[in-house]
């Protein structure tokens, strides 16, 4: 068990490409940190640097109280689970799990004991004498985790461990890793490109893009208060609606958003203080509103909502909810409604817009305004 602290980490390759541009992340002992981002965001590079598999250009990585920048992977007290599982093909499951212990010269009897215990924890006891080639994807994943657990590291590193599994198994293993974390209370750094994994598993999420941490926070905080357009669009499925619109102020001095609803000009009042927005009045801004904040009147019952009649273009039932698509200001806008309330495509229905959690972004910088 240990904390992890990443301070001003930069990585520049010899060809001059800067893949990490000053990363600062503090992870408490026992926390589950998710590094999430698209490909090329630098998340895997950062993980490899924590592991000691890539060198650090500048900055400082501490595991516990130790600065580990110059330490070999084996001296960092870490374990890593890879996307491809990276099980040793020529060894049995038992040998795979015990390999690291053998290298550390743990006595044979103790090795056997640890392997047994780990196998029980992960329910792979019956697989111990098989080779990786004889295992299914989910079983390999478990063995890879077993190999990591056996070493009792201070820090676990996961590199997209679920990407090679099918959808159903992925959900199962997701829950299992989370349960494992709750039981072992270990510190984990987990890299993924899947925002659902990030939301469901992490205590702390670092959303990365172009070698910069766009936002670091708890899942709920990042979901409710995205720092910029990228984070707002990346986290959440279906993603947040972005509507380009002009910001106005009415006679009473309250800000509103001007909308073109199928040719009819309309307004949505914003629950923000006009003073904070004064610089943007009369200019185009981007309104960010999540699909569940636009719903049918029945579902919205009791909540503050502004009613608009909208023409529905597309209806996508998901089971618990039905996703409706309408067009505002020339942009497709997704709404989440109760299946019973959904109308057929081409019909109009009343939708309640709840703007209490709406966000505004500067269209040029992409940064959050309000």
């Amino acid at each position, binding site marked *: 068990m240990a904390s992890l602290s990443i301070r001003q980490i930069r990585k520049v390759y010899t060809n001059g490409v800067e893949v990490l541009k000053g990363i600062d992340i503090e992870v408490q002992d026992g926390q589950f940190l998710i590094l999430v981002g698209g490909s090329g965001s630098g998340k895997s590079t950062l993980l490899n640097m924590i592991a000691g598999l890539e060198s650090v250009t500048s900055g400082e990585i501490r595991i516990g109280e130790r600065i580990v920048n110059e330490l070999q992977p*084996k001296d960092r007290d870490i374990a890593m689970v890879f996307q491809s599982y990276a099980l040793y093909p020529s060894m049995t499951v038992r040998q795979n799990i015990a390999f690291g212990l053998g290298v550390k010269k743990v006595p044979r009897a103790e090795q056997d004991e640890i392997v047994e215990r780990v196998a029980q924890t992960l329910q792979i006891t019956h697989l111990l004498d098989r080779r990786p080639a004889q295992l299914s994807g989910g079983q390999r994943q478990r063995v890879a985790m077993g190999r990591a657990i056996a070493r009792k590291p201070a820090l676990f590193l996961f590199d997209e461990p679920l990407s090679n599994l099918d959808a159903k198994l992925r959900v199962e293993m997701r829950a299992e890793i989370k349960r494992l974390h709750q039981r072992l209370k270990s510190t984990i750094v987990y890299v993924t490109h899947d925002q659902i994994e990030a939301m469901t598993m992490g205590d702390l999420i670092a959303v990365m893009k172009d070698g910069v941490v766009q936002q670091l926070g708890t899942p709920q905080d990042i979901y409710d208060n995205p720092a910029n357009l990228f984070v707002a669009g990346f986290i959440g499925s279906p993603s947040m609606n972005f509507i380009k619109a002009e910001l106005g102020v009415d006679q009473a001095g309250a800000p509103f958003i001007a909308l073109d609803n199928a040719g009819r000009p309309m307004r949505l009042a914003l629950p923000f203080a006009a003073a904070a927005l004064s610089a943007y009045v009369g200019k185009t801004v981007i309104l960010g509103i999540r699909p569940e904040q636009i719903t049918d009147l029945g579902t919205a019952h009791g909540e503050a909502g502004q009613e608009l009649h909208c023409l529905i273009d597309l209806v996508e039932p998901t089971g618990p909810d039905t996703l409706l698509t309408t067009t505002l200001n020339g942009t497709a806008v997704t709404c989440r409604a109760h299946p019973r309330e959904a109308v057929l495509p081409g019909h109009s229905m009343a939708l309640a817009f709840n703007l209490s959690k709406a966000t505004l972004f500067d269209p040029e910088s992409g940064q959050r305004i309000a």
Partner: protein
Amino acid sequence: MKSMTPARFILYLLLALFMLYYIAPLYVMVSTSFKTLDEIRSGNLLSLPHAINGAAWQRAWSSACTGTTCEGLQPFFWNSIKMVLPAVGISTLLGAFNGYVFAHWRFRGSEWLFTGLLVGCFIPFQVVLLPMAGLLGQFGLANTTVGLVFVHVVYGTAFTTLFFRNYYVGVPEELIKAARIDGAGFFLIFRKVVLPISGPIFVVCIIWQFTQIWNDFLFGVVFASGEAQPITVGLNNLVNTSTGVQEHNVNMAAAIIAALPTLLVYLVAGRYFVRGLTAGAVKG
């Protein structure tokens, strides 16, 4: 089972013809080697021997003249064995090690070094003859089996490195990373993780090297004389040593003896050879 259409019939006919065409020389060699000289002179090249007569094999192995000595191919055969085993072993192991480094432990300039080694594959034997002779002379290895082993190891390492490197490029990098995190070092990873999965490429390499080195004539005739000459040189001397009559049956038996070890290696490991080649090709 598919029915025999005319097209298929023609196909099989062609295949059978080609098979006969390819096997004919071997047939002639084997049948001639069991004939007596009289039979060869009076009979047809393609006819079967009247009786199996092993005298020619006896002579080829132990008493045919190769220049001034008349001990048959036997001493040359053992020379070749003494040369081929260490040469194949050393060059294959070196290649495995080099390949591991070039595939998974790249260092500054390693690409250049690898390219340099590749060029080594394309240097014709003849080019290195003179400088190599000088080098062997300086080391005091001229005309010895050790010298021949050295030459073949130097020449073969370029090929074996290429084979192993291309095979190991297909070994996922994450495997090496996992082992590093597990605490294993450079040599331990090689021994415990990489070598145990190298079976197919070892077979390819051993067959390739064995065939190359066993069948080599040029290095053998240039760098070894008398005591250390390999079987290819022995065969040449045997065939060219004229005692008035050309003993075709002995020549044929000698040629088969010289070719037998490589044939054997192919028969035993040929299946893996094709498999290993394609595995390396696809992954490389």
